[in-house]
């Protein structure tokens, strides 16, 4: 093997353990982890043997842990994708390989990997470190037992001794000099200074080097040292081919490997020519059949440049090309892509054969907590529809697509569960999740502090969620929801203006049923429409139903003849109305800052059904723009751009407007610097806000200005609560703030009184 005649093109010569397919595993274990796994069995097998450093092409394993939910029932569902099919099977036994068990992502279904293995041909070139060195270097070693400073041929070494290598050197015969340790050839050897090796290992190493295609000729010499160790010198003659001025990259994945025909040494010259010609023809056909690869022109041009600069094509150059090509694939998420061969050498063209990692089969498996494959409850189509197209069969595996699949599946929050619980605190709850394996769920809870007399503070919720209304195979993503609800809120309508003594509060209790359909267009944009039927009860502080707000008389007394709280005038309203909400949201995070725009239109359309036949059209339009003020490079650790936020909110109502549905002005989500409802309650409102966000370190500081106006429509709310409680009906504010994690700390000045105050708030204003 020492003399390696460079053929016109290189084909794998001996056992080539190659897998051009990919195992991708997504598993969903006990609802707490989802794993997606791509197994390149051959790589897994070879690289798992003993790499001093993690190989670039090691199988990757993603563990994404979503918040673990404790389940009372341990019927865990787990989903696993297994995307693999030996496509080369049947062509030759050497091309049958088993899935490498390396990586071991929760027990993938692959067969047991046979590590190491006979590496050969050009393949070795690309995974040199895969050379098997079966046992670890041991502490004990044998002295060479020879005089110092003599050169010993490899075959003169004793087969029974363990030699300690203190130095390894490559000697380039063509240049007549040793090459530095930074040279790429050093990647080729698994020998390391300080290691302890037997003669057999050294021989194997030499064999590996000889067959890797890098060298025309390579030898291994040892030199004895006085301390009993040996130095290794590897004199070599680098393989070179004629210069090339064309470069082509082809995807040979899914292609049967052409089987090299053994060359008969007794062939005549003519036969030999014939043989070469037929091989060349085969190869041309192969190139033609190969699919174009994903490598962009820019990189191809770059490589062409490398070829031109170099002149002769050398093994080192090919190595650099391989590195460059693989780097591009890695950077773009094609984690399974590998350069497997260079062909057509000694012609004007260098052909780079790439296996991009085509997905040949998609399997969904369920695993239990221990990673054993089990039967799942969730129906496969539910999982399958969450997979990006790029993860379907026939596509090139991309780790980003895998991550996306993982995120999608995690966001389904799939876990099958039936649970009921009674807590001594007064909550009875039950849940039935992932019904029929279609992720339908039924959840309910009832809370009261006193079950014997529950009418005081009964809080209940019952919700049924039915995804995939249009069928699980239909790409349209509509979810039906039906719920019973109740809530109790302090009405901001009955709030005093600045300097007004405490206004007696009014509580608004709502209880009812709601049914709607949500159509998700994108992750953030959606359209919801449905029917709401509810009963609204307004109560005073002592929970008595009150038909009118209270007001404090100048004398200090309280009179209960304030604005009416309900439409019916009784304190209890019932109504049915249609509700629609369309949200368009294309905001995204750019280095941590939100940019994009969001528009929300919400409509409540009364049907004339209910107390006093309420017929109304209540509408709100919110427009928010996050304008990026500077172009920045996108990437982790890069600074976010300064952002200008412009926000407008219009709310209006035509028709019957009970006070609890009036639009209130003031508050952290309306006009900052004021209390909730401090500016008034009106039929039509307009709010405008602007905020400038300047990135500071890894957060941002901001200045803002806001204005809210009742457009003179406060008097159009029955009883004019704005005026009764002495509110202005409009107001502006400005201030500065800084975002500290989830908390906003801001100083806001209210322009009606001209005073400022510091506020701490959770979450975002916009």
């Amino acid at each position: 093997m020492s003399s390696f005649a460079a053929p016109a093109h290189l084909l794998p010569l001996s056992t080539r353990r190659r897998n051009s397919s990919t195992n991708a595993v997504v598993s969903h274990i006990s609802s707490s982890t989802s794993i997606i796994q791509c197994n390149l069995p051959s790589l897994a097998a070879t690289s798992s043997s003993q790499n001093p450093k993690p190989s670039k092409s090691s199988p990757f394993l993603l563990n994404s842990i979503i918040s673990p939910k404790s389940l009372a029932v341990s019927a865990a569902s787990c989903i696993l994708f297994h995307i693999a099919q030996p496509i080369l099977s049947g062509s030759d036994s050497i091309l049958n390989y088993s899935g490498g068990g390396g990586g071991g992502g929760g027990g993938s279904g692959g067969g047991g990997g046979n590590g190491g293995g006979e590496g050969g041909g050009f393949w070795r070139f690309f995974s040199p470190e895969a050379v098997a060195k079966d046992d670890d270097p041991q502490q004990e070693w044998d002295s060479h037992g020879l005089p110092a400073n003599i050169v010993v041929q490899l075959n003169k070494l004793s087969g029974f001794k363990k030699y300690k290598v203190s130095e390894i050197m490559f000697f380039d015969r063509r240049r007549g000099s040793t090459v530095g340790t930074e040279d790429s050839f050093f990647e080729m050897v698994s020998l390391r200074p300080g290691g302890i090796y037997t003669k057999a290992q050294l021989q194997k190493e030499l064999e590996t080097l000889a067959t890797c295609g890098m060298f025309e000729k390579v030898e291994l010499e040892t030199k004895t040292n006085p301390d009993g160790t040996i130095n290794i010198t590897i004199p070599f003659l680098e393989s070179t081919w004629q210069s090339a001025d064309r470069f082509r990259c082809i995807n040979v994945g899914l292609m049967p490997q052409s089987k090299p025909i053994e060359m008969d040494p007794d062939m005549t010259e003519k036969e030999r020519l014939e043989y070469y010609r037929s091989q060349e023809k085969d190869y041309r056909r192969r190139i033609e059949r190969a699919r174009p690869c994903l490598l962009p022109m820019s990189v191809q041009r770059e490589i062409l440049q490398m070829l031109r600069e170099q002149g002769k094509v050398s093994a080192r150059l090919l190595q650099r090309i391989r590195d460059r090509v693989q780097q591009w694939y890695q950077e773009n998420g094609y984690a399974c892509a590998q350069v497997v061969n260079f062909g057509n050498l000694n012609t004007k063209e260098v052909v780079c054969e790439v296996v991009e990692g085509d997905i040949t089969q998609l399997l969904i498996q369920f695993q239990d907590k221990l990673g054993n494959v089990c039967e799942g409850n969730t129906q496969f189509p539910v999982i399958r529809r969450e997979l990006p197209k790029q993860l379907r069969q026939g596509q090139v595996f991309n780790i980003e697509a895998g991550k996306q699949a993982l995120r999608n599946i995690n966001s389904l929050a799939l876990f099958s569960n039936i649970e009921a619980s009674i807590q001594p605190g007064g909550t009875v709850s039950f849940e039935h999740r992932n019904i029929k394996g279609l992720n339908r769920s039924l959840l309910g809870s009832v809370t009261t502090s006193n079950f014997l007399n529950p009418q005081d503070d009964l809080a209940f919720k019952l919700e049924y969620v039915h995804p995939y209304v249009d069928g699980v195979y239909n790409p349209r993503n509509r979810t039906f929801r039906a719920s019973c609800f109740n809530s109790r809120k302090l009405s901001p309508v009955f709030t005093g203006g600045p300097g007004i003594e405490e206004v007696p509060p009014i509580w608004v209790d709502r209880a009812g049923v709601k049914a709607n359909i949500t159509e998700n267009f994108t992750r953030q944009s959606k359209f919801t429409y449905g029917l709401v039927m509810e009963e609204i009860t307004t109560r005073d502080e002592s929970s008595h139903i009150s038909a009118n707000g209270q007001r404090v008389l100048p004398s200090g007394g309280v009179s209960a003849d304030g604005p009416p709280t309900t439409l019916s005038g009784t304190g209890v309203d019932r109504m049915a109305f249609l509700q629609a909400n369309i949200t368009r949201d294309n905001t995204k995070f750019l280095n941590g800052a939100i940019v994009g725009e969001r528009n929300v239109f919400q409509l409540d359309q009364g049907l004339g059904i209910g107390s006093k036949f309420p017929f109304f059209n209540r509408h709100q339009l919110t427009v928010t723009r996050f304008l990026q003020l500077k172009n920045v490079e996108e990437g982790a650790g890069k600074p976010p751009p300064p952002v200008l936020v412009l926000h407008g909110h219009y709310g209006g109502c035509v028709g019957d407007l009970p006070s609890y549905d009036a639009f209130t002005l003031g508050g952290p989500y309306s006009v900052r610097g004021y209390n909730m409802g401090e500016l008034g309650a009106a039929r039509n409102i307009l709010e405008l806000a602007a905020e400038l966000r300047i990135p500071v370190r890894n957060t941002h500081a901001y200045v803002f200005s806001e204005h809210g106006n009742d457009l003179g429509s406060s008097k159009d709310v029955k009883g004019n609560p704005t005026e009764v409680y002495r509110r202005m009906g409009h107001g502006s504010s400005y201030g500065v703030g800084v975002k500290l994690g989830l908390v906003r700390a801001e100083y806001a000045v209210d322009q009606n009184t001209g005073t400022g105050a510091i506020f701490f708030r959770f979450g975002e204003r916009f």
Partner: protein
Amino acid sequence: MAGQLIREWTAIQQFPAATQEKLVDLLGKLKNENVNTLTILVMGKGGVGKSSTVNSIIGERVVTVSAFQSETPRPVMVSRSRSGFTLNIIDTPGLVEGGYVSDQVLETIKSSLGRFLLNKTIDVLLYVDRLDAYRVDNMDKQVVKAITDSFGKKIWHKAVVVLTHAQLSPPDALSYEEFFSKRSESLLKCVRQGARISKKDLQNFAIPVALVENSGRCNKNEHDEKILPSGTPWIPNLVHTITDVALNGKEGILVDQKLIEGPNANERGKLYIPLILAVQYFFVIKPIQKWIKDDIARETKPSWD
């Protein structure tokens, strides 16, 4: 009101003969114009002497008045008839409460009006304030505005500005006449502003001013009539002004359901709701849906897609 017996205006006898004579004269004038009923609404801030003025006109203590607790808790209508002629005077609580115009009081007044004289008209509004106040402020304007908002601008066609506490000695360097004209002018200006009467409307809204002195220490003339510092007996003068206004040819304010309840914003535009809904669907929801589609089309696909 229908069921309530209207008392005979006996107290008119209590007036001095000269006053009686003039009043009868004025009533006769009204009757000549076929006006058999005169309804007067008295409004103003609290404690300016509305109730006292009512008592003075009727000639008896029909409304309780006390010096310090100046609040009339709710509107009171006093009706007196004399030889087929009915005089209704509605006294109301002060419109200012705790430094603000009280909507609540206005509401009460309106609902009382609904009870007292549904589908009848208000013939005269007496807007009462004090002469001896030196300044008009925003509050006065607010009061006028509130009255205008409730009864409409046209009520000022039928209004008389009444200035009480007319018997005063003006501050130094001002004659009584000067003071009076300054005070009434500033108040009228305020009324015009509050009622949003524009300059060119000025002629249309000639609001007369009458002076009143309800105090028992009011000077009297030789006929025992209460007189103003100018020597004019003020009761006949006031009634005269009222009569003039009543007969000024402008329509009175009809008290109907609409006036009592105010404009019902809940009813406004209700008919257009189907139209609004259609507009919202085609011009708001549809465009947003289209934007979403555009977003999806424009979305920067990840490099692997």
